[in-house]
């Protein structure tokens, strides 16, 4: 029942807003739909925690503690983003950057995007997972080019082509997976169901699965934004409307990584070696290091934080690749805190850019003077994402580094150096933006700052104290991933 609501509400929202998305009340309707989704997701989560994994509707949907945790996170961030987008999109419409038609497209696609991500998370069918991931790309392509500027068109085109090619690789990987599974499970519907695959993973043909994983990692890895497949990511983040940057960074990348991790579980079972993990560690480490060094060269504030997302996705990929209870726990925690912190930063950045009328960092100055809450939001968010102690990112990075020290000591210097470089780059750029002499103007609508501080408060809380049920939940999920 809750599951039906979790998927049905955003889908219905997408259709309703396709008609009414340009009305005055559309932003509130959008938030209302997201709130309903969140409530349904919360209901689903409590049920899974109480009753354990469920498998419903002819085994079409499968919910265990790993994906229900991401469902809750996705619904939550989608809701807060819809709160943030209310004043943000009104200001954009007010300044004439968006016509009513585009506003309608935006609201409709926002809900559809939530729907495709939740579908990707909840489905039991590896093929449908692929279909939903592709649909998630399609729903966001037109949002990236929403402003129809040359740069945004270019970004959307790049996003479309690169992710299209990437996702085609993932389809080939899925075909290979089905090919191996068909030998064991027989042809027909069941051979792509994850629950069935997981039961027989030891019997699957290792060479085929190895090859399949390479394709799946490259394919979904393109969407995770792993170096060297990351080219689309900074452009899409910088040129699209800021609420979309927030959900891309906070949610889509997570969902793509979820697909990779699900595949890894199967491949590990079939191969019995650490092949999949090694590949993930390699790509992860490369992403962390390359992204950290590219940070200092950025001039656009949204590109800066897009590169920071690549860095953090690299960290998570590395953690899941390393495997083991501690590293996986750290990876899951990092997924949570990164989503919350990064979307909070994008909320603050969005309003800061609107106030200054530019995304170029050199022209944004003195936020603390013109609007202290935006200024502090950006400062605290940046400190949190850089892994400063009381925040949750510190906890997860500390756990990750401890695990790395034990299991892969060679990698720790690279990780530490990259984190240091990232700190210097981001802090050096954020500091003058927050504390310089003010240049900003007034906004026609009051900015939405509650989501920023709500997110940062949760991240702070997770840094100081992880509630036992949450820790138990992470542990359960970590045990599933292995």
């Amino acid at each position, binding site marked *: 029942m809750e599951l039906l609501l979790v998927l049905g509400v955003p889908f219905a929202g997408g259709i309703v807003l396709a008609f009414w998305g340009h009305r005055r009340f559309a932003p509130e309707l959008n938030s209302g739909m997201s709130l309903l989704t969140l409530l349904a997701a919360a209901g689903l989560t409590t049920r899974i925690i109480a009753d354990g994994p469920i498998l419903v509707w002819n085994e079409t949907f499968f919910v265990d503690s790993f994906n229900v945790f991401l469902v809750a996170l996705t619904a939550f961030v989608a809701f807060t983003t819809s709160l943030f987008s209310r004043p943000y999109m009104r200001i954009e419409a007010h300044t004439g950057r968006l016509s009513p038609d585009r506003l309608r497209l935006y609201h409709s696609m926002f809900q559809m995007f939530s729907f495709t991500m939740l579908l990707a998370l909840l489905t039991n*069918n590896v*093929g*449908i997972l*692929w*279909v939903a991931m*592709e*649909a998630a790309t*399609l729903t966001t*392509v*037109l949002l990236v*080019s929403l402003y*129809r*500027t*040359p*740069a945004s*068109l*270019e*970004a*959307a*085109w*790049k996003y*479309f*082509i690169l992710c*299209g*090619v990437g996702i*085609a690789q993932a*389809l*080939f990987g*899925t*075909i*290979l997976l*089905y*090919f191996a599974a*068909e*030998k064991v499970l027989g*042809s*027909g*519907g069941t*051979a*792509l169901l994850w629950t069935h695959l997981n039961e027989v993973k030891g019997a699957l*043909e290792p*060479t*085929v699965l190895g*090859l399949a994983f390479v394709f799946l990692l490259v394919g979904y890895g393109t969407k995770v934004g792993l170096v060297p497949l990351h080219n689309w990511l900074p*452009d899409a983040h910088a*040129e699209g409307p800021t609420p979309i940057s927030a959900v891309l960074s906070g949610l889509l990348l997570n969902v793509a990584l979820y697909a990779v991790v699900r595949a890894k579980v199967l491949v590990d079972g079939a191969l019995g070696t650490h092949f999949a993990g090694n590949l993930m560690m390699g790509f992860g480490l490369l992403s962390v290091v390359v992204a950290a060094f*590219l940070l200092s*060269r950025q*001039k656009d504030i949204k590109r800066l934080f897009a590169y920071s997302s690549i860095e953090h996705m690299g960290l998570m990929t590395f953690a899941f690749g390393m495997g083991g209870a501690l590293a996986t726990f750290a990876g899951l925690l990092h997924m949570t805190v990164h989503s919350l912190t990064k979307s909070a930063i994008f909320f603050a950045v969005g309003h800061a850019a609107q106030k200054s009328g530019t995304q170029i960092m050199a022209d944004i100055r003195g936020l603390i003077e013109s609007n202290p809450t935006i200024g502090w939001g950006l400062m605290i968010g940046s400190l949190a994402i850089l892994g400063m102690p009381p925040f949750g990112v510190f906890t997860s990075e500390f756990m990750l580094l401890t695990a790395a020290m034990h299991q892969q000591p060679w990698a720790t210097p690279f990780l530490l150096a990259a984190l240091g470089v990232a700190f210097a780059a981001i802090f050096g750029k954020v500091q003058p933006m927050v504390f310089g002499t003010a240049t900003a103007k007034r906004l026609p609508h009051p900015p939405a700052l509650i989501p920023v501080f709500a997110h940062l408060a949760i991240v702070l809380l997770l840094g100081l104290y992880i509630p036992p049920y949450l820790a138990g939940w992470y542990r359960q999920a970590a045990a599933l991933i292995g």
Partner: protein
Amino acid sequence: MNLPLSSQLINLFAALLLLLAFAMLTQRRILSLINLFALQGFVLALSTGVVAYSTQQTHLYYSALLTLILKVLLLPWILHRLIRALNVRWDVETLIDIPATMLIGIVLVIFAFNLAAPISQIAGTITKSTLGIATACILLSFLMMITRRKAVSQVIGFLAMENGLFFAATSATYGMPMVVELGIALDVLVGTFIFGVFFFHIRETFESLDIHHLEKLKEH
């Protein structure tokens, strides 16, 4: 070697697909490119039909029908309308000249056969020998996407790659489960529509469909 008629036919169609992939790689005119793409879809549908007939897999008939409707009729029709509306019938410029592209293509085919060899060995389908060709088609379409400059030809390359993937699915496993195939078809269709919308935006903004306009966003 005495092969039954059906597998001889399948091999013939596979060879035709590879030939068409090369033809698309070298074709300069966009109109002919769309016709070649439609022809490729037609051969694909025929070969799927033969596989369905010889193996008695009824769901493959539906896939063949789906391919016929989507890739032979609907998509080429959309593309034809698009290029008429946009008036982009001119010759395609390529980044690398045609003979060099052909040579790279041949190397890719050899690589594809090597890649597919271990998989086709364990495949139990009558179509296992065509898996190499399917992989080659995917790689050739990929090459086409890389070497073309016009947005339309990049899209045709993308769709041709999907053809190759579909062929791979048929030859390795007699096709994916129906629900997945329907989902993929839906995605391809929606994708093509979005591409169409996109062309108009690109055209409005740059007054050309040449994607070298889309190379401004570089690292500074």
